[in-house]
């Protein structure tokens, strides 16, 4: 009995001490936490923001166009004659904090926004299933008021957006994002519109190859039944094409607006399934201002 006990004791001491260095190496990596990166290729899924932020000390410049609806045919060259443009600059103050400014030609709208990363999807020791980013923006349209007889205030021009972007990269190919949103407009165009509009967005991408992906996006808006008949929810399908330094996003969508307070509220959205389809694209280029390598 004692012999067995001693043998076991000696055996255990030997196991503890006489370990192989390859086991030591493998042991070093067991505890490592692996953050999931590149859930989406761009900071936008199509029209709406994705959970992706701009890296620290990087500047992202995006030019976007949406053309007129294609159902007018050749008379306006399938909408190409009528285009809206958005110029966007966004900068990563921190890896978890992005600031951005936009200028859209529609209603001469300016907007500014912040994006904060709250949670990062990871595997390993502390596995987290989703990434969460908070997005908030304010928008101001600067076109002249057409209703001159009404009292028009500066505050009437403002809209605010709050979004919680919740995304999961399921595997190397598939990423999905759920986007609970609130849009507040100080002034709404008609009695049917709501000052506070709640919406839920669903977006996703599926990679065909490492540099080519299919994307889709839809927002469901929560309105009264009478009101929902009058508006079309934003819908879009597209592709992401990545070259060395650029990301090209080509899309078909039912909106020509490229800021949240515009396309979610839907006053100018067309009916996608009755030919109200707009072609458009985003092109983005990232510049690095990192000093240290």
């Amino acid at each position, binding site marked *: 009995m004692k012999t067995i006990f001693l043998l076991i004791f000696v055996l255990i001491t030997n196991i503890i001490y006489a370990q192989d260095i390859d086991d030591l190496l493998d042991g070093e*990596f067991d505890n490592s936490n692996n953050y999931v990166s590149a859930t989406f290729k761009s900071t936008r899924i199509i029209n709406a923001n994705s959970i992706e932020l701009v890296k620290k000390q990087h500047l992202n410049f995006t030019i976007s166009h949406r053309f007129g609806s294609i159902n007018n045919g050749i008379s306006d060259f399938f909408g190409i004659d009528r285009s809206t443009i958005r110029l966007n600059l966004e900068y990563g103050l921190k890896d978890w904090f992005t600031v951005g400014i936009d200028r859209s030609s529609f209603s001469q709208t300016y907007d500014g926004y912040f994006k904060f990363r709250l949670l990062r999807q990871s595997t390993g020791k502390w596995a987290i299933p989703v990434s969460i980013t908070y997005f908030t923006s304010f928008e101001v349209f600067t076109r002249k008021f057409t209703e001159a007889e009404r009292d028009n205030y500066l505050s009437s021009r403002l809209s605010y957006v709050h979004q919680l972007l919740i995304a999961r990269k399921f595997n190397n190919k598939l990423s999905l994002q759920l986007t609970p949103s609130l849009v507040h407009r100080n002034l709404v165009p008609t009695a049917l519109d709501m000052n506070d509009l709640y919406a839920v967005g669903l977006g996703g991408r599926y990679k065909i190859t490492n540099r080519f992906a299919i994307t889709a996006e839809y927002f469901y808006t929560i309105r009264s039944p009478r009101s929902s008949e009058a508006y079309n929810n934003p819908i879009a399908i597209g592709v992401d094409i990545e070259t060395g330094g650029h990301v090209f996003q080509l899309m078909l969508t039912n909106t020509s607006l490229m800021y949240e307070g515009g396309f979610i509220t839907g006053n100018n959205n067309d009916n996608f399934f009755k030919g109200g389809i707009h072609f458009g694209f985003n092109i983005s280029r990232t510049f690095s201002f990192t000093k240290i390598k």
Partner: protein
Amino acid sequence: MNKYILISLLLIAVSLKVLSQDIYYTKSGLVEFTSKTPLENIEAVNNQVVSFLKTESGSINFGILIKSFKFKNALMEEHFNENYIESDEFPKAKFKGTITNIKDIDFNKDGDYTAEIKGKISIHGVTKEIEAKAEISIKDYKVIANSTIMLKPEDFDIEIPGIVREKIAKEMTVKMSINYELYKK
């Protein structure tokens, strides 16, 4: 009874002796790779390389987390991880090998040596035999090892599309600089 205790103590002593056969290690080794072409120079640095070195047998290994490679341009870093080395699928690179001329190196004496290393390197799910030379200098039980090897992306099934072919070198220069310390549990 006394005899048993004596035997076990002796065996433990032997085990401890085995332990103190000098394992050197580091968790902060430096590996950097450079791709030089007339169009673009690409550099990436990883200073979290784990390595163990067993001086008695001469066995040596490296473990590298691919995502710890830092590039100057974050987009390049993302492309490296996503499109080329596919670090979600293949998160680690490993080397396991031996110093073939270990008998020539005295780790208890200060001095400079050239080590000849032979082993297997695994990157992107592909394992390849490689040989390399390393300059080793020993001082006060600290071991500094430097080595440079050339690796071809195509050997490891890393696809480079035609559009960027001219911007990425056919061969990468991989420089390693490791400061080992005595391993203590």
